[in-house]
């Protein structure tokens, strides 16, 4: 066999899950990612196709390319496969087959997106990715999860529709289905509209504000293990398609920087620990979007930015999974996820705490952890482009990241209160081992960034561990800690929820529906009644137009007379009108079916005669 799609291992492999039982099923679930990883290693070492295109199927005169293999698709495939192994280990104790099945469909379709070489294939896997993730939310089986899941899927169906419309327009204007960088232009035109629609759908999946609210709304409502899967695939595959389709589109550099700060601001206000972390997904994806925006192809700074975006996606998947695993472990053993209901748990779950902190150090970009080696590439790119405001925003977001995920959240969950607020224990062993493996990868990449740098799409000439950089990052984070300690009184959780752009479809949308149902419907039935009145009049008048006209004339005349003359004299006229109305023809007798057919045939016959006569006249 020349090549086998890694996504197919997951998608077809998932079908066997319900058949298997007990220990065998657990082994099988962990075997699938291992097989996929071996597959990827074969590809890297050239035993399978190491670069190029495979699995090409002709379709409607175009080629569907399921396997486009190059360094960019390989690096994303690696991290998705590695992360899926850790995540499945974390979830292996879950009894419901449906959760595992939808998780592997989700992973498989994401790999489908990554290897898609044409836009139709991309669209297909894009949609599977959207709805397979939905079940990871719904399996929580709470009312909140059900509602959030519905809002999630509505937003994604909107995004998917935009993508399809964009693809069709792109096809119509360029005649090409290939998934290559889209021509970026400003102004109104079909080809620009196509590009904008495709970009819009990508930005929805990347959770770029103001299109991000589905993420912070839905992910915290997902199941404990489902949320861990959700953190990785949708947003990071969106980064992949942005790198593929829109490298160096300047507006993204700014948008990403704003996004990085936006997530941080909302995280301050958040009480739910998993929602706090969800806002930090938005913040971290901001770095990647910014990197894509600075990634002008063919320049040193642009290559640094693209490398940075990809490297940060790689590292982010690992440490964000670890953070969600830690928060999920707390939820699993206590049933609580709000800071106001947590505190002092260190006594019961120290191992979870320490493993969580590895993730926290990584996301904050502490030296020796993986966030340090990837985030700094994006920041360095902004320095190379001489964009001081973006630089300050990205560095500022690092401060906020450490403040929340590294200080506020662990302090509020594991410390903050003298006595533990509730009973707790360490989570099941498989969860701890999964966290341990993920933490190992986070530190490994921090210590040996070469492993990661080798996988990146462009050659890396960057050394993160310079004395200046290590010292400035340490200063930044240490003094963030000082400020946190001084203001920690202000950072207690508050039992509130925070308005976000989902307000527009949760409240404003409701008002729009009310407007449609009440005033708009009243207006519609008014118009309807008037039109029907006219129709009835026409039917009535057509029975005998001459008399109908004289009746109407008489009515008007009586009305006018009433204004000027004594009502008694009008009486005669009224009686006369009454008489006339009585003599007006009744409803015409309804035709039978045979009668109508006869009339139709008669009309056709007359038409035929007319036609023949006219033909004859023309000839003569």
């Amino acid at each position, binding site marked *: 066999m020349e090549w086998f799609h890694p996504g197919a291992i997951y998608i077809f492999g998932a079908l066997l899950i319900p058949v298997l039982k007990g220990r065998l099923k657990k082994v099988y679930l962990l075997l699938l990612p291992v097989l996929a990883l071996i597959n990827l290693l074969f590809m890297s070492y050239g035993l399978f196709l190491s670069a190029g295109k495979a699995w090409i199927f002709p379709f409607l005169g175009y080629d569907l390319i399921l396997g486009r293999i190059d360094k960019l698709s390989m690096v994303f495939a690696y991290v998705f496969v590695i992360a899926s192994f850790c995540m499945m280990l974390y979830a292996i104790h879950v009894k419901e087959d449906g959760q595992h099945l939808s998780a592997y469909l989700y992973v498989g379709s994401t790999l489908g997106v990554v290897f898609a070489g044409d836009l139709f294939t991309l669209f297909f896997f894009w949609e599977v990715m959207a709805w397979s993730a939905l079940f990871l939310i719904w399996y929580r089986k709470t009312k909140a999860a059900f509602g959030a899941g519905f809002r999630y899927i509505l937003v994604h169906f909107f995004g998917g529709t935009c993508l399809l419309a964009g693809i069709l327009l792109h096809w119509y204007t360029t005649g090409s289905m290939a998934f290559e960088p889209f021509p970026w232009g400003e102004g109104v035109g079909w080809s620009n509209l196509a590009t904008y629609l495709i970009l819009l759908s990508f930005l929805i999946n990347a959770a770029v504000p103001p299109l991000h609210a589905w993420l912070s709304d839905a992910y915290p409502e997902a199941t404990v293990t489902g949320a861990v899967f959700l953190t990785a695939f949708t947003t990071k595959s969106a980064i992949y398609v942005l790198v593929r389709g829109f490298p160096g589109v300047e507006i993204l550099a700014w948008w990403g920087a704003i996004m990085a700060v936006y997530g941080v*601001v909302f995280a301050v206000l958040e009480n739910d620990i998993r929602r706090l972390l969800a806002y930090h997904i938005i913040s971290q994806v901001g770095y990647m979007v910014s990197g894509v925006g600075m990634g002008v192809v063919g320049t040193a700074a642009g290559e640094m930015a693209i490398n940075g975006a990809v490297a940060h996606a790689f590292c982010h998947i690992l440490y964000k999974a670890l953070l969600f695993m830690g928060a999920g472990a707390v939820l699993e053993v206590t049933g609580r996820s709000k800071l106001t209901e947590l505190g002092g748990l260190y006594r019961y779950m120290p191992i979870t705490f320490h493993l969580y902190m590895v993730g926290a150090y990584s996301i904050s970009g502490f030296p020796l952890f993986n966030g340090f080696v990837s985030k700094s590439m994006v920041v360095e790119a902004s320095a190379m482009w001489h964009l001081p405001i973006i630089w300050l925003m990205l560095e500022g977001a690092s401060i906020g990241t450490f403040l929340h995920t590294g200080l506020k959240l662990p302090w509020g969950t594991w410390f903050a209160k003298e006595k533990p607020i509730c009973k707790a224990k360490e989570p099941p062993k498989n969860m701890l081992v999964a966290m341990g493996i993920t933490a190992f990868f986070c530190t490994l990449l921090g210590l040996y960034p070469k492993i990661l740098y080798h996988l990146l799409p462009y050659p890396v000439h960057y050394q993160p561990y310079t004395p200046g950089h290590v010292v400035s990052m340490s200063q930044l984070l240490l003094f*963030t800690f000082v400020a946190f300690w001084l203001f920690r009184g202000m950072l207690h959780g508050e039992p*509130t929820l925070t308005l976000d752009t989902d307000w527009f479809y949760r409240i404003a949308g409701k008002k729009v529906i009310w407007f449609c149902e009440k005033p708009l419907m009243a207006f519609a039935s008014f118009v309807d009644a008037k039109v029907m009145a006219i129709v009835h009049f026409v039917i009535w008048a057509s029975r005998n137009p001459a008399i109908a006209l004289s009746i109407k004339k008489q009515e008007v005349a009586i009305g006018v007379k009433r204004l000027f003359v004594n009502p008694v004299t009008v009486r005669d006229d009224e009686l006369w009108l009454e008489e006339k109305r009585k003599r007006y023809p009744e409803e015409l007798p309804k035709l039978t079916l045979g009668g109508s057919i006869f009339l139709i045939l008669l009309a056709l016959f007359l038409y035929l005669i007319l036609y023949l006569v006219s033909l004859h006249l023309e000839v003569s």
Partner: protein
Amino acid sequence: MLYAFLFMSLMAGFLVHTYFHPPIHFFWETISFFSALYGFIGCILIIIGSKVLGRYWLQKKEDYYDQNE
């Protein structure tokens, strides 16, 4: 312990600046303790700015959506 770390990081910043001359992209990178200052002030600004936004605009009671839905 914490104070020792803080002092060490400031000293290290000063030493690195005098002996290694890291590349300068922006004018503030000439200040050896800029990162410390930015971390401290930035953190306070984030806390206060967000809290003000939340208090006066964004934060609502937990049943806000249940009541309006």
